């Protein structure tokens, strides 16, 4: 596959198109053609060298320290982190580090695939503007971002290349999310009330500071906040993965210790789908979840429906980890719903999904929440949050507050 020759000489190009239109293959084709090139994919930490013991080493690998663009590093707020291990920083910081390290190695082509959408809006704009203005920028930058429409008007120097028709290599039909289907598991609804919940990590500051809130089934809750605000920590407390240091959690008025039976009331879908894919086929993955709380004889009858809904019917027999990132994400989300727990928390469910699939996902989430499935969504996407028509809840200073 070759890139349209009209954009060959453009410095920064965004590849626009739906899922399976070949954007990733297009990025990789640009890499093969060039002598020195760097590709950064959605699994960001896999694109570090894996040999650097500190962030400073990651940035300066094979180069003199004086070659570094110090301004870029300071603007990306990486300067205070230089002596830390690259794998010990947060996901957003890793994304910025991967971009800075890719830039620092002075490649001819820097290809960035679904990385910007993992950053907050401010950081996205910051990163792209800095890349285009850095004195040591790569000759060519090519990127894919499914959220480009949210901020393209703010970017002056970015050209767009629109991909031709979508082609899916695994089957004749391109898999789309079909929000018209309505046969998902209908678990028993319940409300969750958290009262004065505190949590701090070892030797760290208090992340949850007396959080008090009631989640009722019906609306979709959109959980938002800055990096480090405590959204993931709250989600883990609700899922029973962390034990709060004080406070209480009640399910339908009855006090429960969720940490004693994790996953019994709340099923939590992590941002990185690869952490949750444990089976050798997609269909087995859906059958696997929640079995500790389901009678042996009661299989999940809606497995087939979930496969069709998330466009996974044609890949049901495939190994989940052999699928493209877009589909791995959907498998993991479907698996969360297949647990048939009263509440599901989804962390960045739209990662890697194009606009049409995001719309379909939003429609499905609205409908399933209205039918009684408790749903909390963590997202950085303003557009998706608006589409959900739900209750937006902000995490700030360790506390929750509702807006809208």
């Amino acid at each position: 596959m070759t890139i349209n020759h009209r954009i060959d000489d453009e410095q920064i190009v965004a590849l626009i198109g739906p899922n399976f239109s070949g954007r990733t293959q297009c990025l990789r084709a640009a890499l093969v053609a060039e002598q020195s090139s760097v590709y950064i994919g959605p699994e960001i930490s896999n694109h570090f060298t894996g040999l650097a013991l500190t962030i400073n080493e990651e940035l300066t690998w094979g180069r003199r320290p004086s070659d570094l663009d110090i301004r870029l590093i300071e603007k990306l707020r990486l300067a205070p982190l230089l002596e830390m291990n690259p794998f010990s920083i947060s996901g957003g910081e890793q994304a910025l580090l991967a971009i800075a390290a890719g830039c620092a190695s002075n490649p001819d082509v820097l290809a960035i695939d679904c990385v910007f959408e993992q950053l907050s809006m401010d950081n996205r704009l910051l990163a792209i503007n800095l890349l285009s203005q850095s004195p040591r920028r790569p000759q060519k930058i090519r990127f894919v971002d499914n959220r480009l429409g949210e901020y393209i008007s703010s970017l002056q120097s970015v050209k767009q290349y629109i991909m031709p028709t979508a082609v899916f290599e695994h089957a004749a039909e391109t898999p789309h999310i079909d929000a018209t289907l309505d046969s998902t598991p209908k678990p028993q609804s319940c409300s969750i009330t958290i009262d004065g919940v505190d949590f701090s990590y070892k030797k760290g500051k208090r992340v949850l500071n007396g959080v008090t809130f009631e989640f009722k089934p019906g609306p979709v809750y959109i959980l938002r906040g800055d990096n480090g605000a405590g959204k993931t920590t709250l989600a883990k407390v609700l899922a029973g993965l962390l034990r709060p240091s004080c406070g209480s959690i009640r399910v339908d008025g009855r006090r429960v210790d969720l940490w004693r039976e994790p996953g019994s009331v709340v099923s939590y879908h992590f941002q990185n789908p690869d952490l949750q894919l444990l089976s050798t086929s997609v269909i087995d993955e859906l059958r696997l979840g929640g079995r500790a709380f389901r009678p042996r004889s009661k299989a999940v009858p809606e497995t087939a429906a979930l496969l069709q809904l998330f466009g996974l019917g044609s890949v049901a027999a495939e190994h989940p980890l052999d699928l493209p990132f877009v589909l791995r994400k959907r498998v993991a989300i479907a698996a969360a719903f297949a647990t048939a727990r009263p509440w599901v928390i989804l962390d960045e469910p739209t990662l890697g999904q194009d606009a049409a699939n995001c719309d379909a996902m939003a429609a499905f989430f609205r409908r399933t929440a209205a039918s009684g499935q408790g749903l909390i969504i963590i997202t950085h996407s303003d557009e998706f949050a608006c589409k959900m028509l739900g209750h937006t809840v902000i995490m700030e200073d360790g506390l929750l507050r509702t807006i809208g």
Partner: protein
Amino acid sequence: MNKPTSFVEHPKERMPNLVRVAFVPLAIAINITLGSITHALKLPIYLDAVGTITTTLLLGWRAGVFAGVGSFLLAGLITNPVLPWFSGTQAAIAIYTFLANKCGGFKSYPRALISGIGLGVVAGTISAPVIAYLFGGITGSGASLIVGFLLSSGHKLLTSVFLSGIASEPVDKAIQCLLAVWLVRGLPPKLLKSLDRRK
């Protein structure tokens, strides 16, 4: 600055070799981390050869030896200084696994079970002198009780350690071989191709 030397000499054949070079440090780190996984699950087991066996099945004996020996030496430097003395056992595990695999010893679960029993005998034999002469026959595990019983019955030290090893190692290594086969079979087939496995 010294002239840089590249250790992967042939660009066209570079990729499969690079994947193998990239995999081995991860395998070493997994071997070192296995203990923390069992600790987190509060399980009274420590499957210290699973990483070595799996790496050997995927990448061959050299990678297996490097992963096994490397993990025990590194773990000795940063966590448990007793482990480096058993690096030889890890090397033997890798070589035995490779040879057994060549003879079809890991083609099915029953064959893996038999290979594991044989591996237990090999591992017990190689570890025996180390346990006997460096640790006085006692490692603090349950097998030490068997050693104590045999010693008090009049057996020599090396014989007692060897016999206690033969009593416990085959079961432990058989489980690990079965687990390794299960792991390899469950890995994504297309990703496995990137390791350029030679059959």
